[in-house]
């Protein structure tokens, strides 16, 4: 039984309607949606899962990153109609109300890896995905994978330094990136 009760399309909406069923954060949801509805708008305004943020609607900024069938994706580039039968996980699906923060969330708090917090859910979902992938593979992520992961979203507040630390803590890597005078110190080397 789901307590996620989606609201439906407005009466005036001219595009075709579809009924979709999928899971969000482990709960089954069935909803009537219009053809052109973006997944971000469905999650945010129909399900009121507002933790997924919208920064550009162009797939560039990463703030709307969620997991779709376990993989990190930009939810602003996906139509709600495309998720029929699939499994979605958002920031709200990590630590429940009153539960302890996940290791990734805690790492961002420990390292002051957020300021305004707007990009944070995207980063947390990206790092969570890499952590889960590395756990599934039974090996630590490579430095290149870490760099790809933290390069996947824009943050305008932190200058990324503490986001990198948070990611490294969450991924079980040494937190301080060595400063090398022979390569860009922002570029972690293998």
């Amino acid at each position, binding site marked *: 039984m789901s307590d996620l009760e989606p609201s439906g399309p*407005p*009466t*005036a*909406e*001219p595009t075709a309607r579809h009924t979709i069923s999928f899971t969000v954060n482990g709960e089954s949801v069935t909803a009537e949606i219009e053809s*052109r*509805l973006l997944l971000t708008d469905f999650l*945010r305004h129909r399900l*009121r*899962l*507002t*933790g*997924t*943020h*919208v*920064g*550009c*609607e*162009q797939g*560039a*900024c990463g*703030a709307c990153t969620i997991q779709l069938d376990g993989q990190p994706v930009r939810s602003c580039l996906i139509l709600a109609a495309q998720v029929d039968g699939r499994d979605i996980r*958002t*920031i*709200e699906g*990590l*630590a429940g*109300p009153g539960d302890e*923060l996940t290791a990734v*969330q805690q790492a*961002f*708090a420990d390292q*002051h890896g*957020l*300021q*305004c*917090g*707007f990009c*944070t859910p995207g980063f*947390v979902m990206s790092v969570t995905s890499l952590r889960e992938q590395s756990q599934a593979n039974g090996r630590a992520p490579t430095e290149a994978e870490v*760099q790809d992961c*933290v*390069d996947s979203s*824009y*943050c*305008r*507040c*932190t*200058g*990324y*330094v*503490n*986001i990198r630390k948070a990611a490294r803590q969450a991924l079980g890597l040494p937190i301080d*990136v060595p*400063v090398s*005078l022979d390569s*860009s*110190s*922002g*570029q972690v080397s293998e």
Partner: protein
Amino acid sequence: MSTEPNDWLIGQSVPRVEDDRLLRGAGRYTDDLHVPDAAEVAFLRSTEAHARITSIDISAAQAMPGVVAVYDGASVVDRIKPLLNAEELRVPPGIADLDPVNKLQPAPILATDEVNYVGQPVAMVVAETRYLAEDAIEVIDVTYELLPAVIDVEAAQAEDAALVLLGEDDNIGVHVRHGKGDTDAALASAAAVITETFSTQRYVCAPIETRGLVAQQDPFTGSLTIWSTTQTPHRVRDHVAESIGLPVDDVRVQSVDVGGGFGQKGILVVEELLVPFAAHDLGRPVRWIADRFENLTADAHAREQIHHITLGADADGTLVAVKDHIIVNLGARNMVGLVVPYNALCHLIGPYQVANADLEATGVLTNTTFTSPYRGAGRPEATFAMERAMDRLAAELGIEPSELRRRNLITSEQMPYETGLLDRRGVPQEYDSGDYPAMLDRAVEMIDVPAVRARQAAEPDRRIGVGFALYLEMTGLGPFEGARVEVMPSGRVRLYTGAPSQGQGHRTVFAQILADTMGVAFDDIDVLAGDTASIPYGVGTIASRALVTAGNATAQAGELVRERILDAAAGVLEANAADLTIEQGIISVTGTPSVELTLAELIRSVPKLAGGSGSDGLGETSYFQPPNYATASGAHAVTVEVDTATGRVEILDYVVVHEAGTIVNPVVADAQVVGGVGQGIGGIMSEHLRYDENGQPITSTFSDYLMPISEMVPEIRMDEIVCPSPTNPLGVKGLGEGGAVGPPAAIANAVEDALRPEGVSVRSGPLTPGRILDMLRSAAVSQ
């Protein structure tokens, strides 16, 4: 203050109370608010840089499904007063004596007969959803008769230039000239003179959360509530009330969780008047959140300046004169007056002593989006010009650039230091405190200049360079900020202030101050900032001012409430107030530890006390008016390597030494500086808001407008010195902007140093691989 200094939270890196909510996705940003029945807005915006509107037909849009209302210029022109950022446009008396030009050019709410930049709002559709509103926008029919568009600031100043705004006499929006001594004479007799033009390109705040608001007319009281991304809620309240003709008390503006501001959300735009107007007019909640295209093309732009600068010095490098003509691109209107031009002017010389200065700033109109303050507000641009010029002077004289700087710095013994110029308020500019030589020495040591020089000599085939940038910022802009502190019925303490957070951590930092001031537990304090209903007056969070103004107001109000608590407790405990202490929110009698009273017990008894004061509880409001700016400072030092084959600039090492008085929360403070550095790196390395020659913006997405990603920002090595400000009881200074001021100059200096063997001149950013290769080619041709 009641607790022992070693227990003080001021100075401790208390973990942020904000984080838990934000990390769970439980933040409440403006677009997260669920206001039942809210209609949504889309704007039709000008597609032309300059044109006459010959007709607008909204009838088809009105008939579209789901459309609630359509407004064009004609339908609002008599109902909403044009937009004027009056506070920013005010000229203080001392500055007025300089006989400045500051043209008041109110922005039309919606264009009626003329559009002046691409992105200017022309019509507003209110519909059931944003999707439906955008459908209706598509069928509004506007015909334009094109007018000449002026995009380039130098061309805009030509005698025969076409007018940016019809009806004006010329394209000058702002002009001011100010100086000291006899600059021309000093330059004529100087041993060394360098003249150069250094420019900062247009780049923008681009907070990840765009501007937005939700407005709702209260069905019971008729008052209007606005939830907003604004940095300045009281100013929004005042403007909305004035523009749509409501009593100011009937407008409530609440700044909720805000996803970064950086200045862009600190000035008002017409959309912020139109949305409340629509809610008022329709009696229905209305929401507008800018999309990224609107944010990049039609919200405030920033930075674009040209400096024609001349420095003169004695043979030993002692500066004798500075002359600069600053050209600021205002965009299509004079939105914020002297703020950016004069800030650039009065921060140009920064930490150096020089007897003669002739500084002129001209704000020029162009048919581009209006510009306004962005983190640093004229200082990054001025620092770029001054610090690049200092490197040129060093090269001319054959002096190590850091040594040239050292010879000209104001010393700590000279503090407080009067510069001989007027500050932004129009009173003599006085630096209150600082130790610039110590700061520079630390930076020189950390970046290890001799090692860089040795490496350049040892590896002549590599292009490695070092650069510095020194700057000051006069922080803590007045005139005031307030704090209301109140003991709540639960015994918890609540702080209200007009200065909201856009990520700076006010809930934590102000609670640290209040805990120390009052002697209550940090965990028992709630900070609610940016709600005009909770405190009647406020300015907001701009200009590195919140900690200085709201922080000290918090301390003042906390002290007053502490006195009230002790007086009331004295009555309850039948003790002398002077014998009472408060620690962790528990009041006790000195020497009688068995007698204790909690704040919860006290507040419950206060209204019931026989012979009480008649006052309504334990709350006080206090306003802090800073007597002078608290002048913070910074020294950035960077080493880079340039790959002459690809044009790529790599940052090898980046050092910041900063001084911002008493630090309340070191982790938060350092992160503010690092965040600023990240934005400064974006500004010099990749960001450029560009127009084509017809005034069409061509960097209107995040795929074209290139902000730094993680790998572009290196680790930042930091150190600080502390010179508590004598201008305020907490001894604090602002540091929100400083980090963004240094990188453009420091990195450009390092790049020119690295490319000295190639004869490259760096006059402007961004230093993209393509532009570096262009500079290398033109240097090769001219050699």
